[in-house]
């Protein structure tokens, strides 16, 4: 599968998971944004469809990390993984185009576009 497309699916999956988490947050509902259960189920279905579009191994890693850390992806900032706040080895910093995991916590790393 095209690596760029996989990355795009992965990032959207992560953003959708955050959206699902927020919807279930009582503070969010208290603000006044009500979400119908039907719409919520539709979003969960879309989320699962997106998960199926990922290579099987990556989908399994993503789900395992999500279960463990709640957020499976961690952005990289100034050479640090923002999941575990450990500095990443220099050789990893040149591989920002690839899907790689943090050698310390295992989260999938995300380099923001500059």
């Amino acid at each position, binding site marked *: 599968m095209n690596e760029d497309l996989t990355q795009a699916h992965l990032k959207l999956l*992560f*953003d959708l998971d*955050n*959206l699902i988490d927020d919807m279930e947050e009582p503070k969010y509902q208290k603000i006044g944004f009500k979400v119908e259960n039907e719409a919520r189920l*539709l979003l969960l279905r*879309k989320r699962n469809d997106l998960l199926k579009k990922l290579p099987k191994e990556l989908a399994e890693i993503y789900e395992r990390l999500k279960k463990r850390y709640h957020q499976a*992806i961690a952005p990289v900032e100034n050479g640090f993984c923002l999941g575990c706040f450990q500095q990443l080895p220099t050789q990893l910093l040149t591989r920002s185009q690839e899907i790689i995991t943090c050698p310390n916590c295992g989260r999938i790393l995300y380099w923001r*576009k500059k």
Partner: protein
Amino acid sequence: MNLSSLLSKKRINLSLKPGKKEAVIRELVYSIKKGEDAELIISTLLKREELGSTGIGKGIAIPHCRSLAVEKLEIAVGRTLKPINFKSIDKKPVSLIFLIIAPPQDPGNQYLITLGKIVQIAKEITKKNLIQKPKTPEEFISLINDLEKGLKRRK
């Protein structure tokens, strides 16, 4: 943190071209991010809209989401030259849009606190009929600042 301190003149467009909901969201997102990052944010915002419109009624909408594409909380504001259909809860067209994007890691839950504040400010704006009042981005920030102070005094 004050809401007015999160606003930037460059991201307040008080003469937004009216258009479809998606086009207006797109234009506001592109004032924050470009290219691939902007497209990711737009996809997530539109998924959020599918769950139910963020048009809170009386002419105001607050599209919002968290996204990997931003490092810090970002806000863009747009006022359309003519009201647009946003499928709002009161079915009325929208002309003032507050767009909020937060990073996934958000210590202290600044995102939900800011979202709550914007909802309160938006209610004040509609109550006092102020949507069309500010003529420049500077006046808009000053209005938000005044409303925020008023809300604090009431607490």
